[in-house]
């Protein structure tokens, strides 16, 4: 049973993107705009992370998308990023693990970790319940400070509309 197990227990370094191979029925998700600060910029990566950058363009919040959370299944462990550490866009900053597989969480943009969501140590399944919620009790992964490079990196990411289209196409490719 070689190749399946490779898929279902995808070893490092697999991104969340690898999860798109699994059989997930896709639903259109109502985004929780209420928890996003006014004028914040929401962007998505192809690897299924989201980032909200505040209106002042100095801070941000990172998490994994609802689509990725569904693909992963029941999250049982979250490896949180290291506080104070600087990352470039695309660097592995942490990981999410379910029974089915492990997936790296990558930095959507260049950033420095300022807070981590300790709730996830106790309740990793908040990732399944409210993956795109950046409030207390939500499934956000970390908060970051952002510099000039980080703001530039945003241009390489997808808008919520583009991401919806992207995941819809990914879903189709399975069939």
């Amino acid at each position: 049973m070689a190749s399946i197990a490779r898929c279902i227990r995808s070893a490092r370094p697999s991104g969340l993107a690898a999860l798109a191979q699994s059989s997930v029925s896709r639903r259109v998700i109502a985004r929780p705009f209420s928890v996003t600060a006014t004028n914040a910029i929401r962007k998505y990566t192809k690897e299924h992370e989201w980032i909200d950058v505040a209106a002042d363009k100095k801070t941000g919040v990172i998490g994994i998308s609802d689509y990725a959370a569904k693909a992963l299944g029941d999250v049982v462990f979250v490896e949180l990023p290291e506080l104070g550490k600087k990352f470039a866009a695309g660097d592995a900053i942490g990981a999410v693990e379910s029974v089915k597989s492990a997936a790296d969480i990558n930095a959507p943009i260049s950033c420095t970790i300022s807070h981590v969501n300790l709730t996830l140590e106790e309740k990793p399944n908040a990732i399944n319940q409210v993956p795109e919620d950046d409030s207390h009790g939500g499934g956000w992964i970390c908060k970051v400070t952002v510099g000039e490079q980080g703001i530039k990196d945003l241009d390489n990411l997808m808008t919520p509309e583009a991401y919806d289209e992207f995941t819809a196409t990914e879903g189709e490719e399975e069939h």
Partner: protein
Amino acid sequence: MVPFGGFHMPVQYTGLTVSQSHTFTREHCSIFDVSHMVQRWFEGKGAISFLQRITPSDPAALQDNHSTLSCLLHADGSGGIVDDTIITRIKPDSFYVVTNAACRDKDNYYLDQELAKWNAEPDHEDLQVVQGQRPGWGLVALQGPGAEAVLAPLLEAGQDLKTVYFGQSFSTRLRLPGKQLGAEVLISRGGYTGEDGFEISIHPADTVPVTEALLASGGPDKVKLAGLGARDSLRLEAGMCLYGHDLDDTTTPVEAALSWIIPPSRRKPEAGFYGAEVIARQLVPKSKGGSGVTRRRVGLLVEGAPAREGAEIVDANDKTVSLGSVTSGCPSPTLGKNIAMGYIKDGFHKAGTQVAVLVRGRPRAAVVAKMPFVPSKYWKPT
């Protein structure tokens, strides 16, 4: 869906996550479509002797309709495993052998070669063996404590599953909706989850009707379809090997902690099976004059992050000292702990030994643990 062994197979079915499906199997029962596995037959006067050459088992000691876990061994005498397999003796000179789909081409080549060699040997004129496969035949595993109650209503009156124990098989025809009786099926009590259950070998035309009849028999509260995801986590909890991960061409049965599949009568250098000399020496520790082994397959309980295939096992006190690596691992839905199996340096293999496993470069405390992680619940005579 994922590609697997030449088939498109579901990791999970709609409605249940992998861990929900896993738990459902342990509490009720699930149907796994394992039709991708290769179903073979060996028949002929020489079938027993042939299997005694290519496996460390003793098919002569099997009663009719009894099966055993076994493995095919490389002809080079290294003791390396070609594939693991279940061998069932149907009749005195007739054996049903199930091997892994992922090894199909390798096994076909190996078995064709070995059989040709066997049949061509001058003293084997009266010991000819023929092999067959039944492509397209279904193989459905019904696994879980509710399996007997789901299967029983499909049997003809007078047939009693209570007297069919773990490792035993029988042929019968099942009652299918819409017609009197289906084609003959071979039902074996056992499986790959550690639960009570049955594997049913089915004629291609009946595979879907039999599966539907099983689903209807239990109803959605008692039986559901399960995919490869749950199959993997269930077999891991049961401490069972997955070829290509926990076993490969270089591992021997002794290293793989599968010595128990070798009956006492066959534990000697002159036993005659491929690799017997190496394996017999490995069975005896160095301190007692044998060669022992340098690595052993063990179970591990890992703190914090789940350790998966490829994670390095290191010394608890010095993470620069490598002790081996993990070959399978996942969070155990039943135990709520991270379970893994892997190969560890001989001497560190005793249950309770503290080690560490590197996951994403960071050492996580781990302890060598006995397998199965979750006790098996086979139906056995009391």
